[in-house]
């Protein structure tokens, strides 16, 4: 488990994000979350942005890059938010090609992260089949957002344990733990509250069976901003049998691991 890593949000998209990366270079291993890679709709702009990102990733020793399994742009629209993909055959092949190209350009593994949404594909197995197929074809890993999984299971009425049985768990290298406190069901602001019991139980299952190398916790929990946050951190550590507590003083600007 990589204590003391930092996950940065969408760092390539803003000057401030790039500055954070530069500041952290050489000091801290970094996991990067880039929600706008536009997997289903590669464009020239993406290619340019990605090529510019490579030196920063190298300098900051970024372990991998995480992106949602979704799309936030089409050739004519900028939605500004990851929306779920529909797993048609052409979509699977184009996302597979994009993932392979992005991994090549970045020189590191891409992790695809599940998102919470309203489409039935999350419950009927077609989305997880698409995720497995893309990872199988490209060598990409899976970042499992347990908060999103719990939300999907509640909204769509399925058993998350059974959903996990269909996932290629051997590819899960990152877990995200946190409770959704916002009103929406999709991936927006990262989880801001401590994980609930359902998510912790799922985390136990996954940690026992998957080669997880990093667990992302909400920054509030790690900073111990409230008594509830401090208590939550102790609870998580005990529940997941961590031998020592993660740092409660992550570097500014990121969520610690």
């Amino acid at each position: 488990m990589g204590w003391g890593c930092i996950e940065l949000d969408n760092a390539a998209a803003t000057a401030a994000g790039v500055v954070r990366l530069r500041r952290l270079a050489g000091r801290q291993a970094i996991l990067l979350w880039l929600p706008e890679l536009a997997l289903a709709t590669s464009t020239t702009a993406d290619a340019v942005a990605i090529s510019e990102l490579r030196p920063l990733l190298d300098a900051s020793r970024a372990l991998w890059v995480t992106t949602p399994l979704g799309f936030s742009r089409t050739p004519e629209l900028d939605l500004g938010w990851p929306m779920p993909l529909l797993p048609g055959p052409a979509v699977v092949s184009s996302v597979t090609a994009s993932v392979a190209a992005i991994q090549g350009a970045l020189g590191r593994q891409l992790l695809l992260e599940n998102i919470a949404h309203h489409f039935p594909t999350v419950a009927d197995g077609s989305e997880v089949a698409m995720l497995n197929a893309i990872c199988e074809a490209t060598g990409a890993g899976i970042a499992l957002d347990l908060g999103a999984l719990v939300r999907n299971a509640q909204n769509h009425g399925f058993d998350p344990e059974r959903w996990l049985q269909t996932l290629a768990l051997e590819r899960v290298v990152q877990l995200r733990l946190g409770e959704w406190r916002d009103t929406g069901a999709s991936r927006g602001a990262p989880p801001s509250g401590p994980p609930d019991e359902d998510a912790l139980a799922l985390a136990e299952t996954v940690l026992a069976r998957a080669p997880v190398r990093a667990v992302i916790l909400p920054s509030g929990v790690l900073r111990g901003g409230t008594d509830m946050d401090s208590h939550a951190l102790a609870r998580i550590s005990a529940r997941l049998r961590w031998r020592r507590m993660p740092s409660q003083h992550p570097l500014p600007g990121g969520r610690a691991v």
Partner: protein
Amino acid sequence: MLATIAEGTACFVLDDGGVLFSAERQEMHVLNGPAMFVWCCLESALDLPSAVAAYARTFSLTPSEAERVMADVLCRWQGLGLVTDVRLRAASPVDLTTALGRLLTTPQLRRSFAQAPLELARSMPLRESDIPALLALDPRALEAQAALLQERLRQMRHAPAHESVSPPRHPAPPAGGFAACHRYRLLGTTIEIRYASARAAAIVHPVLAHLAVLEEFGPHAVLEVLDAMPGWVIVEDGLPRVECRRLPYLAPLVKSAVRRIALERHRCFAHIHAAVVSDGARCLALPAAAGSGKTTLTAALVHDGLRYFSDEYAPLEAPGMQVRPVPLALSVKPGAADALLPRFPHLAQLPVHRREDDQAVRYLPPPGPALPDDAPLPISWLVFPRYTPAQQTILRPLARPQALRLLLKECLVLPRALDRESVEQLVRWFRAVECFELSTGNLDEAVRLVLALCQQPEGSGTTLRTASPERP
């Protein structure tokens, strides 16, 4: 009729193209000539054969080619909610994700999907192999996801520009009174800055001194720069806003606060990321992203006789899109200092500050004679600069539709929702503006070309280029 124009959609002619505006979606689309032709056919309510024949004749196409192009354009507009009831079927298939994006953003399409999903999929037209995936989608789930997207977009529009951070400390004001107090005026707003220490005043005041006014101007806002041990806290109207740990970062933070306060209080149509200079009667704006050389060019133009309005922000005021001066000190980055030293030898002696993004800058106050009064002036020229080292310096006319696309990319803030009237004002202004692109390899040549442009009669549209070999 080719299709029905959606309610709230309007189009304005701009040269041989146009600007399409959707009030419901709050979107502007710049149309090229052929697309504008199709729109004119719609507005003229031409029947299908007449429209296709006119298009074919105008663009030297066969009728079938013309019909295919028009169908693709109309179906795309339908996907974007700009028209409905398209009578033609597009020949070029759309991919599943593009179709989904259209459905998520266009209520009319979702209604059609709920009523006749297969018919809608074929009308888009979606690739045959992707149709089963779309048909498996429950219309209620699609509606729920679309509502979620709308809520997200609404949140984004109202989200603060910066992520929330812990509030800074709030140190007490100095017991013995402030060491210095100055009032500065920008965009008609007077801001009083109280410095708790002479050290803070010594680093910040020179950056703003050219904006200083007498105390008879009552302050609209008060900033206090308080010592916080270590560092400083900037307090705005009694509330601590930002904390600064190191002295080189202090002046940029205060300057940024002054600019923000002034811009927030200033009613305007839009804030454009552009430098602006003036010949005293008309303005020339240089819209461009950071790193394009606009500050360097602006400083040189000001030295060589033009008046200084801004090196970064241009607030456009409706109805005429006039621009008002925001003459904050020019932010000169290290790479630009050498080029400006012949004109501003004292630049090397100015202190180096650090912006929030860690960029080192020297703040060059504009020369006194270059400072305009506060009155707004019309923009007559838009010049889009691009720094191209070791390349020929060239100034060439730019088609207005293309220039408008570039300008919209540099639009930072639209304080109010767009309506038909405001978009019409924007387009009307744009019809009268001369637009150019400037590839700058040599600063002196660029200055010569821009000064010559300001002396040319309006509408000459000549391509001006250097003949001399370029140096990096």
